[in-house]
């Protein structure tokens, strides 16, 4: 827990440093008709650096308590995070490639997770990964008229 606490405080301090640097570029003093653009961020960042430093000292003087996360907990969290990242990449990969769109990628993601983590039988996996995107598609695209990114699958059906 202590290491994570120290790293977080240090990161916040570093972020404060970046903000101060940018505020200095913009100017944080008094302009022609009021405070300059950098004024508000500058003072916020100065305060943040100072307070993060105090937290850093506080934490480093305290005793080391239990770990931030056990190895097992960490693996569990990653098993959620990595599939989400893959789902987003699949929906819309960075760069020139075009993605599957949110619905198709969402269906694949749901099915994969159900099978991989929950070990559900294939029938319910297929049924749900078809039903959920379909239902959300009709709710958002036709009922509430909120368009989502679409890919080849929707195009194939003429959307």
């Amino acid at each position, binding site marked *: *827990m202590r290491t994570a606490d120290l790293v977080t405080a240090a990161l916040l301090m570093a972020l404060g440093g970046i903000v101060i640097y940018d505020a200095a570029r*913009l100017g944080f003093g008094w302009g022609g008709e009021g405070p300059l653009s950098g004024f508000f961020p500058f003072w916020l*960042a100065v305060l*943040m650096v100072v307070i993060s430093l105090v937290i850093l000292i506080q934490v480093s003087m305290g005793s080391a308590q239990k770990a931030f996360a056990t190895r097992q907990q960490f693996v569990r969290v990653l098993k959620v*995070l990595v599939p*989400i990242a893959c*789902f*987003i990449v699949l929906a819309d990969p960075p760069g020139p490639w075009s993605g599957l769109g949110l619905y198709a990628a969402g269906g694949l993601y749901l099915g994969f997770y159900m099978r991989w983590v929950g070990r559900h039988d294939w029938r319910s996996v297929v049924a749900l990964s078809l039903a959920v995107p379909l239902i*959300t598609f009709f709710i*958002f695209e036709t009922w509430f008229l909120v368009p989502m990114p679409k890919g080849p699958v929707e195009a194939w059906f003429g959307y």
Partner: protein
Amino acid sequence: MGPENLLLGFQVALTPFNIFIAVVGILLGTIIGVLPGLGGANGVAILLPLTFTMPPTSAIILLTSIYWGALFGGAITSILFNIPGEPWSVATTFDGYPLAKQGQSGEALTAAFTSSFVGAFFSIVLITFFAPILAEVALKFGPPEFFAIQLLTFSSFVGLGGGNPLKSLVTILLGFILATVGLDIVTGQLRLTFGFTDLMKGFDFVVAVIGLFGIGEILLSVEEGLKFEGAKAGMKMRVVLDTWKILPRYWRTFVRGSMIGFWMGFKPGGATPASFMSYAFAKRFSKNADKFGKGELEGIVAPETAAHAAGVAAMLPMITLGIPGSPTAAVMLGGLIIWGLQPGPMLFIDNPDFVWGLIASMYTGNVIGVIMVLAFVPFFAAILRVPFAILTPLIVFVCAIGSYAVHNSMIDIWYMLIFGVIGYTFRKLDYPLAPFVLALVLGDMAENALRQSLIMSQGSLAIFFNRPISGVITAFALFFFALPLLTPWWRKLRS
């Protein structure tokens, strides 16, 4: 001002379409409240895009109904599964879960829903009377007063929030800093973008709410290796009626809880301390104090009444001052801006049908809500029996859709994921999330108020002290900021 306006409000709230909206909202809200990883704030945030094409009054009725539903839903998980969906339902688990394990879940749930209803109703009546008065006072406010109120808002997180006050302060500063990212509308300069076009739009707090509370919460619960072991939800009409016969006995607890809830609730972050305070008071004054924690009905009445009174009271500063008292109210405020309304005291003059429709819908929404949850408890409880490997990706998928829909941009889904990791880390390290979100929402307003005040005073901070109203508010704010420093000193002095 007053009764005739409320009547106008009811004419708006009681149209068939708006009643239908309220029912849908409460249904969705209760489901959201029951689901792990979703709560009032991110539930409202995810569904916000659905309201873009609605008339504003129906839109706010949908969002507030979701909020009421989520509040009711929190009680279901606390009592049946010993999982507090929100921090303010923690106290409800103390007596709720033992009662449910003794086979009295029906009594416990009836008491919880009824208390919620009473607490909420009390606050709504007070809002009906105080909101117009407060709005009229607020009309005379200038930038220094608004900035002072912002200070007061954030100072109460630091002074009364519990936990490490320095960490509360840092999250507030971080929220304000993230709010400055992008185009500065006053000078037209780009701030903190470092040449990245994606950063020009800045960070939307709706996405932040979905990530911090939604994804972050999921990460926290998988880490625990989540398993639900629920008590049975048996709900019979007889049980409801029998419990209603007992409840009037606790009228003192109801009154006390409502007052504590309202008083704590219109200040930010008040719902959680209000529920604990009300529980502690009830235990102190009860004849059955030794039964508290083992399954005492009064131990459900006290925190639920206070939490709901506080949850409703959080709407008061949102509608009158344009300053939200909770993350959920903040998302609604964001909605107001998207629907083209100007939050703040002018709403009462420019859009009376909206304001009074909203207030009237609080009455109707809570009446519809209490009936619906009493009738459909088994259905809502069944949601938690859906296997975890289905719930998790389902919630993530819905969160992703909600994040995308805010600005039709994929980058927001990545932000959602990043905010999820931040939320997970912050929660584990005791950095509070609510002040972070409020700072992100209020950042632009706070900065503008500060700038305008300083322009008025030619750069002197004295302006916050030598105007009577802002002087008093600023003094209170400074007092709250200093409270964590004063308390140990005060304790030493007394001993």
